[in-house]
């Protein structure tokens, strides 16, 4: 095992896959000269050359479209959008092209594309640099959505995403980049569509992803004398390993879903839908959703802290459902 940051884990995943497969290339803003503004592709240009690490003008629609088209022609692009907020400028390429081309072509075209980006609040970057948009991508059929919480998952999922023949939206979190975790020395993959129980417990199930996994684990720890909390990280929202969630809910009967995205209309609602559909009778208390306040993210640190959902809200929700 080695203890590495998530940035490092992601960097290794890309490097290993580029070494393994010549059809893999990286494209995005500032990806060559500084390895992207978060450093995920640092060193790549030097190692693989600027032909395979393509630094682009600020033209998200064109270079995402290029990546989609290159995937149609058999390459395996890893396309970086600097902030998920900027995906609004290439939404057509993602929602109407990447997601639908295979189906519209009757399966004749495949789009083995990874769209990497990062999201989330907590850095006082205000409303246009702090969103969590996983629910939007997860609502569009044809996209897979990966959203890792640990360096291990990040590396394993990214390698799987690169090898997957479908478009995968890969959502990192800006506050997790410098968080460390153990990863094996030898190669490993984490399959898309397999949840992980991050902590076992018998009283309450907490489903959380991305930054909220850590917060859920902290909450579970804080409550350990009172409630036994099971924390499940789906790791990918599409495909969703609902079976893992259902198994836990059937055991605990109590459910909290924690997302950083704003409360109204988030992906938690989709989990609730499945729970109502498939294991409603197992519930012994009303399930609760934790999320950030439904406002544009304010700049001021005082306000941002008030808006963002965190450990405190998870603790309150666990206590409420366990009562």
């Amino acid at each position, binding site marked *: 095992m080695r203890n590495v940051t998530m940035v490092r884990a992601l960097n290794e995943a890309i490097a290993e896959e580029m070494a393994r497969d010549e059809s893999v290339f990286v494209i995005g803003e500032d990806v060559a000269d500084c390895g992207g503004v978060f450093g995920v592709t640092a060193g790549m240009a030097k190692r693989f050359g600027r032909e395979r690490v393509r630094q682009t003008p600020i033209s998200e629609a064109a270079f995402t479209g290029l990546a989609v088209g290159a995937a149609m022609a058999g390459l395996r692009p890893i396309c970086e959008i600097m902030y998920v907020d900027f995906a609004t400028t290439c939404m057509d390429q993602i929602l109407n092209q990447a997601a639908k081309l295979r189906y*519209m072509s009757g399966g004749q075209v495949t789009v083995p594309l990874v769209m990497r980006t990062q999201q989330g609040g907590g850095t006082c970057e205000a409303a246009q640099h702090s969103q969590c948009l996983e629910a939007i991508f997860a609502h569009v059929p044809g996209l897979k959505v990966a959203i890792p919480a640990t360096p291990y998952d990040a590396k394993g999922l990214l390698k799987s995403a690169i090898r997957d023949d479908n478009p995968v939206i890969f959502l990192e979190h800006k506050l997790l980049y410098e968080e460390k975790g153990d990863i094996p020395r030898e190669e490993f993959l984490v399959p898309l569509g397999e949840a992980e129980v991050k902590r076992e417990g018998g009283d309450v199930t907490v489903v959380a992803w991305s930054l909220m996994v850590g917060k859920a684990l902290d909450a579970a720890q804080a409550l350990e004398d009172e409630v036994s909390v099971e924390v499940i990280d789906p790791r990918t929202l599409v495909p969703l390993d609902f079976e893992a969630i259902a198994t836990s809910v059937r055991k605990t009967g109590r459910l909290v879903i924690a997302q950083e995205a704003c409360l109204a209309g988030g992906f938690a609602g989709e989990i609730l839908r499945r729970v109502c559909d498939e294991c409603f009778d197992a519930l012994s208390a009303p399930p609760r959703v934790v999320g950030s306040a439904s406002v544009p993210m304010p700049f001021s640190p005082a306000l941002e802290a008030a808006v963002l959902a965190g450990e405190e809200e998870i603790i309150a929700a666990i206590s409420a459902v366990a009562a």
Partner: protein
Amino acid sequence: MDLAPERLREMLRLMATIRRFELRAQELFREGLAVGEFLGALHSYEGEEAIAVGVCAHLRDDDYVFSSHRGHGHAIAKGADVRAMMAELLGKSTGISRGRGGSMHMFAPEIGLMGGNGIVGGGTPLALGPAFAAQYRGTDQVTVCFFGEGAASQGVFHESLNLASLWRLPVIYVCENNLWAATTPICDAWPVPDLAPRAESFGMPGMTVDGNDLLAVHEAAGEAVGRARAGDGPTLIEAKTYRHRPHCMVIPEHRPEDERAQWEALDPIPRFEAWLLEQGAISDVELADLHTEVEAELDAAADFARQSPLPDPAHFAQYMWA
């Protein structure tokens, strides 16, 4: 013009096939309507045949074409099977996209047909992809992207020109300027007469050509394709043309009658036929035969489409994931 007569006649045949395909397609559409079935949007390529045919004449099966919503002509010129295309229009399982795509989404990647697009301008960035792939792999494949003058007002088109020029990608953008976008005349969309200067402002060559003159299109496209194959980068070609029909089957005609009459006289098919006859590259009899054969081929295609089965509804999710 140093093309062999067979090549010239083949281009005429393709133009005639497109023309006839559209007529049959409209019949099928109306047959559907008559039984209460509305078969989506249908945009006729009639009148613009010289562009698709003149450009695609330079392409190999391993070259790529990205088409638009008005894409039947591009598909046929690229060599697609008209039977499968016709079946697609009816949503049949034998359709060129297995009935999943319809008129605007015809795919045949084995001959480089990378699909139409329901999003105006949607193909312009996608076309950069196979062009990039060719450069990346060191092949001499070229990619062509067809789009309308309406699409030329989309931002992504400009981003694409910039990237194509910056990276000298082997891509050719062909603007089919038919003077109208749905019911909007070009004077309500372009503050300028021509598109070529825009290409030049991105540092790439721009050409303007009479899109109703097959030989003119063929020549311009030859130059552009040659440049792309040689690794000398992209070209923009603006082809001035006119569609014979209203925007699609459900939007009534909005264009002035005199404008339509004026363009009718410039119909690319009779023009090319007259030239062929004049050159002795075809005889009257051969010409009549060609049209008869094409008509029979399209009749057969329409029958094939009608008789093909619809997909099994239970298989709606098929082809979603790879």
